[in-house]
């Protein structure tokens, strides 16, 4: 025993040595009882793993393809590229991946070498670790976006949105709605045309989705047509270009309409002369004499289309002399009898008009208003057919206005985003440009006054919004002193855009490669 103890002392304690069953070298006992070299010569744990693979790369945008259709931007020897390469290797789920890294290769060699360390169980319980290299051959392939860009023929469906009206208010509003809901995210391009816009899409379904969005916000009618581009007779596949003609109902807010007999009868016998007070995907009309409120859908409109009697461009200014509420109310509309005179008549003569209006709650004696002067207007007999001989009212009041302010120096503390629209090729007339600028200004003023419309679109703050607001307040105070209290009660009603309604305008670089193909 003493000898044995000395023997133990001299030796290392972990001396569970057996002979490797194949080559006979002394090894510590392991579950397979073979030395590492013999195991290595017997088994190759990297057996099922391919050692050479290909990966696709787009020259134009330096992106690598992750099948089936996703392109990943990555630099050489970057983490994203490593993830991509490892994902492509089949058979890695059978072994345990311990380590992975790149082996340097010449950048122009079109080869990427990845060194992997894997572990796997062999025989019964022995874990073997092995390092091996997988080589990727880089093949160039153009990604879809680059192909489309190069081909310059990118669209397969177009939505041609038109409204046959002489102003662009609806389109400005539509533009803001589209921006807010990002409905144009899948559009390949937008082009401006006379009387409307063209939206181009790569996919018929994207186009249909856009048109459905439009149907929910404005009243319109669509017609579709297709054009055969190419066909493959062996597969019976056909390649089309789709065109959707979207026509927006040409009635706008503040229009006066004379409804045709049938339409008026279908809408609860509303009187033929009505005023449009709101436009969504339905036209909301109100009879100013009976406070009857109805909604006209685009379907009913196109059954018997008609044009407005007068629209916003024909509004003239009036001054209210007296307001007598009659009694009936409906929501925010109060029926009232008013006495008013044209601003152009002031000082000239004593012509006073008496009429009934639905805006009794807004007007006070002494206010300025906008309305239609129907006494001096000429209309076609056909348009007035529904009236059946009765006369038109002399005046129809529409809106209240405030005295003209010098808006030119007054900067707004908020702004809107605009769609990137390709301009129409063709001669551009200065008149059109001026008219459009004037329309845009009117649109901005409308936004300032109408809280309801504001809630539907996004307003963004100017960088120095607070200073501008401050300055404007001082100017307003100064002017009100000059005008001697003419605007006393009106400051609140004007509905200055509060700072809390504004969003921060983050200038995101709208990259071309926003979404997937």
């Amino acid at each position, binding site marked *: 025993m003493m000898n044995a103890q000395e023997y*133990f002392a001299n030796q290392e304690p972990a001396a569970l040595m*057996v002979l490797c*069953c194949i080559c006979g070298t002394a090894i510590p006992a392991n579950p397979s009882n073979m030395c590492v070299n013999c195991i290595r010569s017997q088994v190759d744990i990297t057996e099922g793993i391919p050692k050479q693979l290909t990966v696709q790369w787009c020259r134009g945008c330096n992106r690598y393809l992750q099948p089936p259709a996703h392109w990943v931007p990555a630099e050489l020897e970057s983490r994203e590229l490593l993830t991509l390469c490892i994902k492509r290797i089949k058979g890695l789920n059978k072994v345990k991946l311990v380590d992975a890294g790149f082996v340097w290769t010449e950048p122009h060699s079109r080869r990427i070498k990845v060194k992997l360390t894997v572990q796997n169980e062999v025989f019964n319980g022995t874990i073997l670790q092995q390092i091996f290299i997988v080589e990727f051959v880089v093949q160039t392939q153009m990604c879809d976006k680059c192909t489309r860009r190069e081909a310059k023929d990118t669209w397969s469906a177009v939505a041609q949105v038109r409204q046959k009206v002489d102003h662009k208010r609806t389109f400005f509003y539509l533009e803001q709605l589209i921006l807010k809901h990002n409905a144009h995210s899948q559009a390949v391009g937008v082009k401006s045309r006379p009387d409307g816009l063209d939206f181009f899409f790569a996919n018929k379904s994207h186009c249909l989705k856009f048109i459905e969005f439009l149907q929910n916000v404005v009243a319109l009618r669509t017609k579709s047509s297709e054009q055969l581009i190419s066909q493959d007779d062996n597969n019976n596949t056909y390649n089309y270009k789709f065109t959707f003609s979207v026509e927006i109902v040409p009635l706008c807010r503040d229009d006066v309409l004379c409804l045709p007999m049938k339409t008026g009868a279908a809408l609860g016998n509303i009187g033929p002369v009505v005023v449009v007070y709101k436009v969504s995907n339905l036209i909301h009309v109100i009879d100013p004499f009976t406070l009857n409120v109805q909604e006209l859908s685009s379907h009913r409109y196109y059954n018997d289309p008609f044009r407005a009697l007068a629209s916003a461009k024909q509004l003239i200014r009036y001054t209210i002399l007296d307001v007598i509420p009659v009694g009936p109310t409906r929501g925010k509309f109060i029926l009232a009898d008013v006495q008013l005179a044209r601003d152009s008549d002031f000082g000239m003569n004593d012509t006073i008009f008496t009429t009934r209006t639905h805006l009794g709650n807004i007007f006070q004696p002494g206010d300025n208003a906008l309305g239609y002067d129907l006494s001096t207007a000429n209309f076609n007999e056909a348009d007035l057919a529904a009236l059946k001989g009765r006369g038109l009212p002399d005046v129809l009041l529409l809106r209240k206005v405030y005295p003209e302010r010098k808006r030119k120096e007054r900067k707004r503390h908020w702004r809107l985003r605009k769609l990137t629209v390709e301009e129409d090729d063709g001669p551009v007339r200065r008149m059109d440009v001026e008219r459009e600028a004037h329309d845009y200004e009117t649109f901005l003023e409308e936004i300032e006054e109408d809280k309801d419309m504001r809630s539907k679109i996004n307003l963004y703050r100017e960088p120095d919004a607070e200073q501008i607001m401050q300055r404007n307040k001082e100017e307003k105070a100064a002017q009100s002193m000059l005008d001697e209290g003419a605007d006393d009660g009106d400051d609140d009603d004007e509905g200055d855009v509060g700072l809390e309604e504004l969003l921060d305008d983050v200038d995101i670089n709208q990259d071309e490669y926003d979404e997937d193909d």
Partner: protein
Amino acid sequence: MAVRTQFENSNEIGVFSKLTNAYCLVATGGRNMAAFEKELSDHIPVVNTSIAGCRIIGRLTVGNRKGLLLPNTATDQEMLHIRNSLPDSVVVQRVEERLSALGNCVVANDYVALIHPDLDRETEEIIADTLGVEVFRQTVAGQVLVGSYCSLSNQGGLVHPLTPVQEQDELSSLLQVPLVAGTVNRGSGVIGAGLVVNDWAAFVGLDTTATEISVIENIFKLSGAQPQTIVTEMRNSLIDTL
């Protein structure tokens, strides 16, 4: 010398046969007897049998030159057959024991035996009487199934490769024979199932590598006495390593 063979395509010889200095038991079926008979029938009787209708007789029985122990599941017919076939010097005895796989629980040569620590006192006495051996309760490499993980002859013993050196020395002093830790059947540690041995012959599975055979022949002192046989045997081993 160590002979490589198979029992119906299985390399676990020790499961289907029992080899001692006085006799050899082989399970029924096919041409299994051929290898055994060729080697042994000149010297000792080779008996074809089953225990309780099963062929795993190597693991169910334990015996040496002086006796043979059968489990309580062995039928009377089988016992009679065995008793008739074996020489009269061998005492055949049936043992009533809960752990009935005697071949797994007990390993014995002609002088000494190791048994499963949980075996009955009664069984221990029967073993001592019938086999005429000194009995020790021990474990091998922390395993209680001593018969599976250790193989013993009068010249030496082979144990499971994970047996610590200390334990090897302890067992060696108990059993009074040299011990070595090794493998059989290409790295398998279950020695008792892969190998049967007596003082002059050994049978191993076909998968056993040359290294393992050389270890076995070394520890059990099996290499033939004549130099010629040594040369031919060694040459066979050398060719195997290639």
